[in-house]
C-alpha cells in the first residue's frame, strides 16, 4: 500500500500541472500521474521525426494566464515566450496577401493601402471595441462560476466585481457586450467590415476548434475568447521557446520544486470511491494509490464514465454527461520541411511568424463546415498553419523547418468509411491545398504526420477528439460547464474535482481551469 496523498492529479497536461504546482505550493502532498512518457497532454512537444521537435497538439500559448507565470515564477523555471511581428497572415492567389500585425497601427496602414482607408478606420475602432469586451471576459477567467441554485455571498463578490467592470464600460458598451455575445461571428464582422477576404481571415478565431460554422450563433463569443491575452484587440499569437511542451516542463519544475511528485507512464484505470467519497485511484497495472482528493484533467466524459463509472452517478447526472457535445472537428498535419516555403502574396518571411491562415472568405469557411455537418472532412478545409522554427530555430536541424497545419473541419463521426482509411487522404488533401498557396512545399516535405480526431482521442484521450474537452457553445459555458449544476469544479462524488478544459472557462492553453480547481480543492481540504 502506498502512502496517502492529499491530492492525486490525473493527467500531466498543462492544466493538471498548474493545479499540481499550486497545491504543492500551498503545502499539499501532491502526485501527478501521466499516462504517456511525455508531459503536456495535448500541448506537448515531441521529437516525432529525428531532429524535429514538433508541437503535436496545441501550438499557441497566447491565452496562458500571466497571473500564473508570476505566481509560479515560471520564467525562473525556464519558460520563455516568443512572438513575432505578425499575428496572422493570409496568403492570396491573386495578389498581395493580408497581414494582421501585432502592432495594430501597422495593420491599419496595410488595410488602408490594400483595401480602403474606411476599412482601416473600421479596424481601428473594431480592435478598440474588442479590447474593451475582452477586458470584461478576462475577469471571468479566474473565477469560479456561480451556482444559480445556491448563491453563496462569498462566491458572488468576484462576480459583482466583473459586473462592475461591465458597468464601467458605460451604458452603450455594456449593451453592445450583451448584444454581441450571442451573435454569430459572421454577423459581428459584417457589422464592421466590407472586405470578404479580411472577414474570412478574422472569422477563423470564431470557429477554431469547434464544430460550428461562422454563421452559427455563439461564435462571436469564441472570437472574443480567442482574443483574450492579446490586449489591443489583437490575437495574442505567442509561442514557447523550445516548443509548447516547455510550458509543461516549466510547470512540472515548479511543481517539483514545491514538493510534488510526477510519475510518467502511469495511466489511471479507475477512480476509487467509498460511500460517495473518493479514496484514491487504481493504475492500469493494478497499483492502488490512496488520496484525500482526486483531480482529473481528463475530459468530463472520460473522468465520469470511464474512470469513475456511470454506476456512481445519479441517472439525471448521467444523462447530463451523456448530453455533453464533444464533436471533435479538427485534425493536425505536421510536416518536417527541408527549407522554408514561399507563399503567394507573401513579401517577407516576417509575415510568416504568426499564424498563416487559409480562409479566403466567411462563405469558404461556412462551406467547409457544410461538409463536416454531414460527416465528411471539408473538401476545401480552412487551415491554421504555423512555422514555429522561424522564431525558434532550435526546434529543427539547421535550415530545416517545421510546418504544422490545424485542419478544420475534420469531423470525428464520419458518414462513410473510417479515419484509419481516410487519414493519409486527408494529409494529401492538406498538402495539395497548401501547394496551391506555396507551390514549392510538396518538394520540401521530409516527413509527415497526420493526426485525425480519432488519433487525438486514442493518443491524448480526448473524447471524440474535442480539443476543448467539450464544445465551447454558449449552453456549455459557466455553470453549465462541464454539466449543468457542476460548474464549480467539484464533481458529483465527494472530493473529486475536474481541473481540465472541460471545466470553466474552457479550452485553450490558459491554465485557468487548473488554477480555479486548485483554489476549490484547497477550500475543500481545509
Amino acid at each position, binding site marked *: 500500500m502506498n502512502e496517502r496523498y492529499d491530492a492525486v492529479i490525473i493527467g500531466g497536461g498543462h492544466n493538471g500541472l498548474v493545479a499540481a504546482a499550486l497545491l504543492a505550493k500551498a503545502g499539499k502532498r501532491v502526485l501527478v500521474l501521466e499516462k504517456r512518457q511525455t508531459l503536456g497532454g495535448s500541448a506537448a512537444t515531441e521529437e516525432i521525426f529525428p531532429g524535429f521537435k514538433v508541437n503535436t497538439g496545441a501550438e499557441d500559448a497566447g491565452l496562458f494566464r500571466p497571473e500564473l507565470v508570476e505566481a509560479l515564477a515560471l520564467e525562473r523555471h525556464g519558460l520563455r515566450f516568443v512572438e513575432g511581428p505578425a499575428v496572422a497572415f493570409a496568403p492570396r492567389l491573386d495578389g498581395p496577401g493580408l497581414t494582421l500585425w501585432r502592432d495594430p497601427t501597422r495593420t491599419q496602414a496595410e488595410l488602408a493601402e490594400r483595401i480602403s482607408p474606411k476599412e482601416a478606420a473600421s479596424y481601428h475602432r473594431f480592435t478598440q471595441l474588442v479590447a474593451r469586451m475582452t477586458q470584461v471576459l478576462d475577469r471571468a477567467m479566474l473565477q469560479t462560476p456561480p451556482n444559480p441554485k445556491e448563491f453563496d455571498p462569498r462566491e458572488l463578490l468576484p462576480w459583482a466585481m466583473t459586473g462592475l467592470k461591465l458597468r464601467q464600460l458605460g451604458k*452603450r458598451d455594456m449593451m453592445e457586450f450583451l*448584444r454581441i455575445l450571442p451573435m454569430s461571428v459572421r454577423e459581428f464582422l459584417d457589422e464592421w467590415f466590407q472586405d470578404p477576404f479580411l472577414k474570412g481571415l478574422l472569422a477563423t478565431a470564431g470557429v477554431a476548434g469547434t464544430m460550428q460554422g461562422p454563421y452559427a450563433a455563439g461564435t462571436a463569443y469564441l472570437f472574443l475568447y480567442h482574443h483574450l491575452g492579446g490586449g489591443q484587440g489583437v490575437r495574442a499569437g505567442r509561442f514557447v521557446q523550445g516548443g509548447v511542451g516547455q510550458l509543461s516542463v516549466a510547470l512540472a519544475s515548479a511543481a517539483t520544486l514545491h514538493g510534488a511528485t510526477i510519475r510518467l507512464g502511469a495511466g489511471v484505470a479507475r477512480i476509487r470511491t467509498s460511500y460517495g467519497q473518493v479514496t484514491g485511484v487504481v493504475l492500469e497495472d493494478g497499483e492502488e494509490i490512496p488520496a484525500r482528493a482526486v483531480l482529473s484533467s481528463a475530459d468530463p466524459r472520460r473522468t465520469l464514465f470511464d474512470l469513475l463509472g456511470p454506476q456512481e452517478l445519479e441517472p439525471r447526472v448521467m444523462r447530463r454527461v451523456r448530453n455533453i457535445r464533444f464533436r471533435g472537428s479538427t485534425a493536425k498535419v505536421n510536416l518536417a520541411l527541408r527549407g522554408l516555403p514561399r507563399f503567394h502574396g507573401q513579401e517577407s518571411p516576417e509575415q510568416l511568424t504568426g499564424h498563416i491562415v487559409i480562409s479566403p472568405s466567411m462563405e469558404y469557411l461556412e462551406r467547409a463546415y457544410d461538409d463536416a455537418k454531414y460527416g465528411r472532412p471539408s473538401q476545401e478545409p480552412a487551415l491554421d498553419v504555423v512555422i514555429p522554427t522561424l522564431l525558434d530555430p532550435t526546434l529543427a536541424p539547421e535550415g530545416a523547418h517545421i510546418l504544422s497545419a490545424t485542419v478544420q473541419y475534420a469531423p470525428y463521426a464520419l458518414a462513410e468509411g473510417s479515419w484509419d482509411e481516410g487519414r493519409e487522404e486527408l494529409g494529401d488533401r492538406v498538402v495539395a491545398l497548401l501547394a496551391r498557396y506555396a507551390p514549392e512545399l510538396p518538394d520540401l516535405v521530409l516527413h509527415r504526420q497526420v493526426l485525425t480526431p480519432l488519433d487525438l482521442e486514442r493518443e491524448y484521450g480526448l473524447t471524440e477528439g474535442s480539443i476543448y474537452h467539450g464544445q465551447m457553445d454558449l449552453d456549455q459555458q459557466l455553470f453549465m460547464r462541464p454539466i449543468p449544476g457542476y460548474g464549480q469544479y467539484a464533481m458529483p462524488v465527494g472530493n473529486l474535482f475536474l481541473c481540465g478544459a472541460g471545466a470553466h472557462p474552457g479550452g485553450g492553453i490558459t491554465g485557468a481551469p487548473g488554477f480555479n480547481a486548485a483554489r476549490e480543492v484547497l477550500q475543500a481540504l481545509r
Partner: protein
Amino acid sequence: MSQKYDVIVIGGGHNGLVTAAYLAKAGKRVLVLEKRYLVGGASVTEEVYPGFKFSVFSYVVSLLRPEIIRDLNLPKHGLTILPLESTLTPLPNGDYIYRDADHFRTLRDIARHSQRDAEAYEEYGRAMYFMAKAVKFILGMVPPDPTSFHPEDLLGLAKTARNFLGLEEDQLYTLVKLMTMSAADFVSEWFETDGLRATLAASGIIGTFLGIRSPGTAYVLLHHYMGEIDGAFRAWGFAKGGTGGIAEAIASAAREFGAEIRTEAPVAEVLVKDGQAVGVVLENGEEISGDVVVSSLDPKVTFLKLVDPRQLPPELVEDIRKFNIRGSSGKVNLALDGLPNLTCMPGYGRHLAGAISISPSVEYMERAYDDAKYGRFSRRPYVDVIIPSMIDPDMAPPGKHVMSCFVQYAPYELAEGTWDEQREAFGNAVVDALSQFMPDLKEKILYRQVLTPLDIERMVGITQGNIFHGELSLSQLFFLRPAPGYAKFRTPIRNYYQCGSGAHPGGGITGAPGRLAALEILKDQRK
C-alpha cells in the same frame, strides 16, 4: 388640414389594431391608417380565387394573449378559434409520425418508432409546459434595462431573476439550453427518432433565417410553445373565417370603443416639429394631426423611412441599420378540386384537419437551409401545410378545399435572378415537395397563389418580408429589441411610439407589443 386626433396608429395589422382598441377604450380619439383595402396586415383572409378564402399570410393562431381576448371581449366581436388537433409528419420510407389531441394515441404512435421516445415524449411535454409557463410573464412585461439603476428597471430585473431562479434546478438548466442551443440539438437530448426530432425542431426555424442545427433556434421553439388557447398551453388553432377573422374581431372591438379606421390610407411620413411627433402625411399629401403617433410597422420603416433619420441619434440609426430582418419564408396557397390523398395515410380522415409537416429528417431540414444560406430557395423545402376548409367549411365551396402552405426557405436576397423571375419555379418546388407524399395533389390544383418574401414586402409592407419584423435571435430580444435603449416602445422623438412585432416580445399573432405599447402610452399621458 383635417380634424385632430389624440392618437394616430400607422398600420392596421393586428398589433396596430390592438393598440388602437386599448387606447380607444381608455377614451382617446384614435385613428388607424391602413394602406390596403382591408385591415389585418399579415393576418388577413382574402378571396383570391372566386369562392375560395385564403388566410393569405399568417395561417394559425395560438400566441394571442388571453388578456387581450378578455380586455377587448373579442369573442363578442366574432372571434372563434377552432382547434388544430394533430400534426402528421410523412416519412421518406412511406411511414409517418402522427400526433394528435388523443395523448395516448400519440404515445402509441411514437412507440412504434421508439419506446424510449414515447417515454421521453411525456417528460418533454411537461418540461416545455413548465418552460413556457415560466417564461410567459415576459410577454406581458416591458423589458427592464439592465444598465439602468431606475427603480422600475431594478424591479423588473428583480422580477425576472426571481422568476428564473425560482425554477426547479432541472428547469433552470433547460431554460438556459432553450435560450442558447439549436432546436435540433435540444430535441436530440430527448429523442432518438430522426423524423420526430426534425418535426419537433421545425418550430425553431419558423420565420428565422437559421437552420435547425443553428444555435439560437431552440428559443424560437420555445416562443412557439408560449401560446395558449382557452388555457391550454401549446395548443394551436385556426380562426373561424381565416386569420382575417382575428383582425376583424379586434377592429370591431376598436370601432366599438370609438376608434376610427381608414383603409387605403398609406402614410408617407410622420410630421415632427421640435423633436415631437405632431401628425402624419398620407401618400396623397393629406395631413392629419395627432398628439401621439404610433407605428406598427417594422423598425426599419418606423425609424428610417417614416421619419428623417437625421432627427435621430446617430447610434440608434446605426443600430437600426444593423437590425437583422432577413426574409426567409414564403407562402403557397392552393385552391383544390378535392382533398389530396397521402401515401402514408390514405383516405380522407381526421388527419387532414390538422397540420401536415414536411419535415422528414434533420438532414432534409438542414439541407433546405444550406440552399438559403447561399441565396437560393430550398430545392426541397420545409413545408407546414394545413387545409383550413377541413376545419371551417366556409373557406371553400362544398366539396372543394383550400390548402395553406408555409414554406421555408425563401431568402429575400437571391444570389441569382429576381423573385419575379423565380416565383413560379419556387411554387413548383413546393408542389413537388408535397407531391412526394401526396401524389395526386397536382391534378387537384385549381389555382395557385405563390407569395415570395418580395411579395410579402410589397403587399404587407414588412421589410424583406420577414414575418417576425426582425429575427428572434438573442441579440435582438428583450431589452435589445429593436435596439439597445429603445425596447420600451418609445422612440427618441417625443410622442412617437412603436407597437409592432419589431418591438418586444417579437413576432407572431400575440398582440403583446400592441398592448404593451398602449399601456406605456397611457402611462406617459398620465404624467
